[in-house]
């Protein structure tokens, strides 16, 4: 027969249990651990690189595209050539599911259990949450996809990306439209409207474009936010067409952009479109249909002339035209592995701190640096004791103090079924 006393004792037991669980785990974290989170991956530790991108959910295609390039460079180039620090580099995938909480858990797993030396990723979708994990675990990141303006000045350490900020991309679009005679095949546009999808990766374009259009003297006629993943955008489209614009800037996911363009064409719209990097590739033309996208303008980070043939060898190695974010992934992975290699050579140990420090040395030009555009060239130059200035597919890849890159932009247009370059906007023109 149990009584009041017994019930009360059960509560105290439960309370004791949870408190002791906490104390036990707390005191077990060895006090001598130097500043960073968990033991430093000393040179004897495994050479793990974490790919922190979405592999499920709406944006799982980002993870798939980037992973293909990561495997190509690390498994086909780095490891066969002896790896780093005498070991193979191990790729560990972390599915951030395109959400904040998924990103935090995946980042924690990669940083704590896999002791990764650096993150390839994350995306703008999960950056709000992952930012805290990066700072706590002091793990450097090089994102091939995060254009979010949050990264513009996130911090001096850890944060790097091989994709220009949406604020630069937005400014380039605005410049191209307002100086269309010179940059867009001699066309000219009076009424320009903007459609932005209501999702993390897209909304960060909105303010930069609005501000730049103002600055360049052709303010937007209308700016509309549409909700993503809808079956029908007919009303949003006819709302925008109310001012009968001759140019619509469309910031959206590939699937939604294809729907909007098709439904606009069915609503009698025959003006021009300007899309962001996500849609400026062959995959999008196939998705939306060549006849719908004929004449559409887009932009991509411009590869320097020296890398013109680099794009061919990359396309050959891939076996298909590069998909969305694959060129940026090429640069992000090369920067990371070369920084690891340089850290091993110069500092004698490959740790998060040394890799983070060496990223700038690899990317930014110092006098006497040799320009390199791939792992082989970079490795050879480091072995020969030279400093290196990595330049890749997404431009010269030089970091500012916040880890952002500026890049010249290629403006392209769909001509008879494929994107053809039309003009170039130099990086300094956008300052």
């Amino acid at each position, binding site marked *: 027969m149990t009584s009041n006393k017994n019930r009360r004792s059960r509560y105290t037991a439960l309370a004791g249990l949870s408190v002791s669980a906490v104390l036990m785990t707390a005191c077990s974290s*060895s006090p001598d651990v130097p500043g960073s989170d968990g033991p430093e991956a000393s040179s004897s530790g495994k050479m793990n690189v974490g790919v922190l991108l979405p592999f499920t959910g709406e944006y799982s295609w980002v993870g798939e595209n980037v992973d293909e390039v990561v495997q190509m460079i690390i498994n086909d180039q780095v490891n066969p050539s002896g790896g780093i620090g005498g070991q193979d580099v191990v790729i560990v995938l972390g599915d951030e599911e395109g959400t904040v909480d998924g990103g935090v858990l995946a980042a924690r797993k990669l940083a704590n259990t896999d002791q990764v030396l650096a993150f390839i990723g994350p995306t703008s979708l999960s950056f709000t949450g992952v930012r805290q994990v990066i700072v706590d675990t002091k793990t450097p990141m090089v994102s091939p996809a995060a254009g979010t303006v949050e990264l513009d000045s996130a911090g001096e350490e850890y944060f790097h990306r091989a994709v220009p900020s949406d604020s630069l991309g937005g400014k380039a679009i605005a410049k191209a439209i307002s100086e269309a005679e010179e940059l867009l095949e001699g066309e000219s546009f009076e009424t320009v409207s903007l459609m932005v999808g209501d999702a993390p990766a897209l909304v960060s374009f909105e303010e930069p474009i609005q501000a730049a259009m103002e600055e360049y003297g052709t303010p937007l006629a209308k700016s509309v936010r549409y909700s993503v993943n809808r079956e029908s955008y007919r009303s949003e489209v006819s709302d925008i067409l109310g001012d009968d614009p001759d140019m619509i800037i469309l910031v959206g996911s590939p699937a939604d952009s294809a729907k909007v363009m098709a439904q606009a064409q069915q609503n009698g719209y025959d003006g021009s479109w300007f899309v962001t990097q996500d849609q400026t590739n062959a995959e999008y033309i196939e998705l939306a249909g060549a006849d719908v996208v004929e004449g559409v303008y887009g932009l991509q980070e411009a590869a320097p002339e020296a890398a013109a043939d680099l794009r061919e060898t990359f396309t050959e190695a891939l076996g298909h035209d590069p998909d969305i974010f694959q060129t940026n992934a090429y640069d992000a992975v090369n920067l990371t592995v070369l920084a690891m290699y340089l850290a091993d050579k110069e500092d004698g140990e490959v740790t998060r701190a040394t890799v983070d420090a060496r990223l700038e040395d690899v990317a930014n030009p110092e006098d006497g640096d040799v320009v390199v555009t791939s792992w082989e060239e970079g490795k050879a130059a480091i072995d020969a004791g030279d400093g290196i200035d990595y330049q890749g597919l997404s431009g010269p890849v030089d970091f500012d103090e916040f880890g952002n890159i500026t890049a010249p932009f290629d403006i392209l247009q769909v001509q008879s079924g494929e994107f053809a370059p039309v003009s170039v906007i130099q990086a300094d023109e956008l300052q």
Partner: protein
Amino acid sequence: MTGWLLFGAFVLTNALIYGILALGLNTQYGLAGQANFGFVALFAAGAFATTLAVLPPPDSPEYVGTYEIGFGLPWGAALLVAAATAGGVALLMGLVCLRLGGHYLAMVTFAMAQVFASFLANEEWITKGQFGISPVPQPLRDQVDEASTYIYLYLGLAAVVTLVAYILAERAGRSPFGRVLRGIREDEVAARTLGKAAGAFKLKAFVLGGVLAGLAGAVWVGSIGAVHVGQFIPVVTFNVWLAVLLGGVGNNRGVLLGALLLVLIRESTRFLEGVPFLADLAASNASFLPSLRYVIIGLALILVVRFAPQGVLPERLRKRVQPDLTADESAPVEPVQVKA
């Protein structure tokens, strides 16, 4: 080694948060028979209420970012604000659907959660919408310089809140108030015939469930230090349902265990790439293994409902002892039918 412990501590905190959510849903469904398929809305209400409460006001020196509302309250007050806000949203939700039962109530609450989600996503002056709010000040963060020890400290804080939530839910369940709710769950008409105003009781249970979800929301925001509308999607509701069904409908200790099992199942799938034969299958399609996680969660839902409707720790019968406030239990009751 401490890396694994650290990740373990972080996952345990996540499990405690799902535990508090499971206690909340168990109070609404397990105790009062209200099938709430919009539970994530209450979780979101708690999370955003906490965020706005603890954020330093826009005019204060520590202001960072572009959010528009911040009260700079201490975390203790923020917990109360979260519980009150989520309780308020639960009151609104409960009032609207008192007249419905079974799967119709499930359908209406699911639709209401979607409406609440689009409200949160669109009202950027409150939630910063798709931009999200980060960083959000974490409790006692400045007391600890070491990021890793903070994880253990936070685990302790989460454990304390979970204990409070457990005592709250357990006392409600065992008290005469809980007995009336269980009667209403069994047969509302009979309960009314015996003089109980069923509507008012169901509403109170709904609000208590909301309060618990609000607490979970607060602990959640504290653990991540950021909040974004994209976190509060229907999958969360179904995860909490799985925790309650797996643990044992009607048994608070059972649902806590169910939450732990849920999080362990979910997080263990992050280590699948270690499994040899799966690795080469995954080589062809990078999202092969991660989507396997959702297959496993889906299968778990199906199998639990079909083969273990009672869950791991089924609800106990309250037996008669010599006159004492609560009776102890021994033999489990036969299957608690998951019925309308």
